[in-house]
């Protein structure tokens, strides 16, 4: 049933791309950029799934009693997704501060009005 994760993440990426390509309001464009990031992160984490595995953390009760550790999922994509989430948040912060600067200078955030370079 992991195919549901794959399809949902691809739908998120396509919806985000649609928002970036079509919308005129600049804040909606930045929101679409964020949605693409979330879809990509979910795809990366879902690719490392092993059927029947649990979280890759050793349980103290298992280690103390000598039971063999349970079957783990892949820990490497989870570790790389942590970095990717932080990068997505930072890109959103800088894009939003640029939108604030555009509003201060042009007094509107419609993408049709901010096309010309003023003197």
């Amino acid at each position, binding site marked *: 049933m992991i195919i549901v994760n*794959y399809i949902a993440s*691809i739908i998120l990426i396509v919806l985000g791309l*649609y928002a970036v*390509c079509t919308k005129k309001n600049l804040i909606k464009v930045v929101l679409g950029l964020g949605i693409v990031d979330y879809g990509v992160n979910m795809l990366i984490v879902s690719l490392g799934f092993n*059927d029947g595995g649990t979280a890759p953390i050793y349980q103290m009760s298992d280690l103390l009693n000598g039971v063999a550790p349970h079957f783990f999922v892949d*820990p490497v994509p989870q570790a790389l997704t*942590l970095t990717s989430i932080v990068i997505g948040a930072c890109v959103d912060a800088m894009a939003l501060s640029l939108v*604030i600067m555009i509003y201060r*200078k042009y007094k509107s955030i419609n993408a049709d009005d901010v096309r010309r370079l003023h003197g």
Partner: protein
Amino acid sequence: MKRTLTVMSLLVILVCGIFAGRYAYDNIPVTYDGREVSVVDLYNNPTVYDESNPDGVADVIVKENLEKTMAANNVAAVVFDFRGYDTLGESFILLTAIAGSFVILSRGHKKEEKGGEA
């Protein structure tokens, strides 16, 4: 015209993505066969049912983790020890983004005040 072209190309990407997801789901490396399995036996020794020979990086990391780092959390060991350079770069990204936001917002504030006076 432009709008229909955009929507058509995004639909093509969506269909290709669904086919790719289907292909990835069908070719997952089999790690254990879920049929005719007694759950108690699976819980007691799970490695008997493991049918794959994993030879990737993740297998090496999980096998060597406890004796090399003595950390119970495998993900924290991967983030800070096995791939510590990525976390260093990400630390720089945080610093740059927050400093950049601060500089951008304060420059605009100053210019607005100057433009109002002049």
